């Protein structure tokens, strides 16, 4: 490393900067192209690699060529290179192992966790830059900290801190370590915290800089962390994908603040790109659920949604395994509607087995995928793909609904809210208006469920009480196993 540095330092100074700038331009272009390619199924994987390449380029060139202008007008290269490389290696090994080992079902948590790391990184940068900036301003006898640099530092800390704390809570919720806290009071606490945060940033900016007086930065960090927690706490577990996407765009903005601070174009473009595309993605996800972003954040699900008919006098009908086996074997068209229960039970391979078994009997089995089934959009596609289910077997919601009248049997595997007729029939229901898979229009419906518990939206599902519905209680995997064995024995 010393050698490389001596070689690179023999270039004249303007050479360094232009090489670094060119590498940043290249990195930005790679980010943009990577993101573009990520939005098409055929090119998505290479898009990811392109973006990763851009990142590697930016990192290596920063270590080699970055220069900071000192007060005396000289330029200083990057120091502590062995430490930086050690940190890079630790982060790479841990990140790689964690990402490779995580189960497909735990993917959403992992994304949230990594997002939190980025937020924390941005917050730490601000915490280190603030004392330096304040000392510098105090040296120049500045009256206030009213400048772009201070704003970038404070906002970077605030947004990064909120993103970190929020992501950790989202991680805990998806991992089912943290429950939902639903209280209307929390809404007001949230709003006042947000107000205090912004007020505090403005207060700090109008303060006279005093070298060594750093309590403000720790206070701001603390406030941001608390707000991150109270922001995510009341939002229901089912809405976590939207929250993660939103926090993702927050982290992007926090990274861009760093870019603003260092006049670093790669950080600026990369951060803002994620900030804006993340916001759009968040809105698209909300649209897929037919809800507004505000509605998600305020948390309309649960709590007050006790509306709906009482279910006390209604009874459900169970179906025995052998009856289910006979029914399936003598059908022509079967549709499987998977939900989060399938992911939890890891039953995707058994679904595929059932599909093959039925195919050998001349029964056609397809999968009806609701856009927000599971814990993330596309969650079911990924799971079924893992079990080698062919792409053309996966039907989108509209196609599945169009063919519903001709479908003999629908098997609902661990889905609930995405097949709830209340979304169409009951205007008082919190999910009213959300597009759902109309499984009740099929000739028969078999619902595999662990219990009569409600789905994540915590509302009653009338589907279970409909005349054509039959319940098959038990863990999705165990039940499917028995069902497959039963069909083989016919």
């Amino acid at each position, binding site marked *: 490393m010393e050698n490389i540095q001596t070689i690179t330092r023999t270039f004249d100074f303007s050479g360094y900067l232009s090489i670094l700038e060119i590498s940043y331009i290249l*990195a930005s272009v790679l980010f*943009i192209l990577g*993101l573009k390619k990520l939005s098409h*199924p055929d090119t*998505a*994987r290479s*898009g*990811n690699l392109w*973006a990763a390449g851009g*990142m590697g380029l930016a*990192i290596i060139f*920063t*270590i080699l060529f*970055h220069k900071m202008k000192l007060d005396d007008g000289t330029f200083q290269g990057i*120091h*502590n290179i062995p*430490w930086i490389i050690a940190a890079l290696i*630790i*982060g790479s090994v*841990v*990140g*790689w192992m964690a*990402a490779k080992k995580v189960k497909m079902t735990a*993917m959403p948590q992992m*994304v949230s966790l*990594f*997002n939190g*790391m*980025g937020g924390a*990184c941005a917050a*730490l*940068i601000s915490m*280190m830059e603030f004392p330096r900036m304040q000392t510098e301003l105090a040296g120049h006898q500045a009256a206030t900290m009213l400048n*772009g640099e201070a704003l970038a530092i404070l906002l970077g800390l605030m947004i990064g801190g909120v993103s970190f704390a929020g992501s950790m809570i989202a991680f805990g919720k998806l991992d089912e370590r943290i429950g939902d806290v639903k209280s209307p009071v929390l809404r007001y606490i949230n709003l006042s915290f947000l107000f205090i945060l912004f007020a505090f940033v403005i207060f700090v900016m109008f303060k006279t800089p005093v070298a060594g007086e750093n309590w403000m930065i720790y206070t701001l960090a603390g406030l941001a962390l608390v707000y991150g927690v109270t922001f995510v706490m009341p939002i229901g577990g089912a809405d976590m994908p939207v929250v993660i*996407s939103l926090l*993702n765009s927050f982290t992007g903005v*926090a990274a861009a603040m*760093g870019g603003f601070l*260092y*006049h670093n174009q*790669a*950080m*600026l*473009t990369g*951060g*803002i790109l*994620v*900030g*804006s*595309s*993340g*916001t*759009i*993605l968040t809105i*698209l*996800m909300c649209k897929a659920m037919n809800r507004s972003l505000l509605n998600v954040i305020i948390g309309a699900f649960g709590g007050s949604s006790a509306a709906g008919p009482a279910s006390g006098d209604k009874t459900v009908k169970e179906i025995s395994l052998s009856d289910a086996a006979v029914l399936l074997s003598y059908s022509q068209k079967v549709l499987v509607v998977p939900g989060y229960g399938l992911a939890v039970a890891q039953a995707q391979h058994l679904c595929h087995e059932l599909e093959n078994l039925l195919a050998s009997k001349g029964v056609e089995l397809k999968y009806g995928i609701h856009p927000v089934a599971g814990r*993330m959009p*596309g969650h079911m596609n*990924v799971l079924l793909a893992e079990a080698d289910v062919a*792409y053309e077997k996966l039907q989108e919601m509209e196609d599945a609904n169009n063919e519903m009248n001709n479908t003999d049997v629908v098997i609902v595997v661990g889905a609930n809210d995405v097949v709830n007729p209340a979304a169409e029939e009951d205007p008082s229901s919190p999910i009213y208006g959300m597009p759902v898979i109309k499984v009740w229009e099929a000739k028969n419906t078999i619902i595999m469920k662990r219990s009569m518990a409600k789905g994540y939206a915590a509302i009653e599902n009338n589907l279970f009480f409909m005349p054509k519905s039959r319940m098959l209680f038990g863990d999705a995997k165990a039940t499917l196993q028995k069902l497959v064995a039963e069909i083989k024995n016919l």
Partner: protein
Amino acid sequence: MNELLEFLLEYREAIFIILLSIFLGIEVISHVPSVLHTPLMSGANAIHGVVIIGAIIVMGHATNVLSMILGFLAVVLGTLNVVGGFVVTDRMLEMFKKKKKQQ
């Protein structure tokens, strides 16, 4: 008012980049199928790991022990975001590809 104009002048390049990037981000994402929402979010998650460059710069100019420790931590966290983010995204997309080959 004067201060605002001065601010705009001083940071005109950054503001230019920010505005263009906002439109670019919106344009690039707008017509994405819902199947790809998750990998795309994950990929974007990895891209904002670019914040690691800031961490390297801070670490590279750290002089006292406290800033060394914080800088080290920042670089580790940033790397986790970058490496973990890209690897998770690749694992998700790997499954889409496997399926394509079989067709």
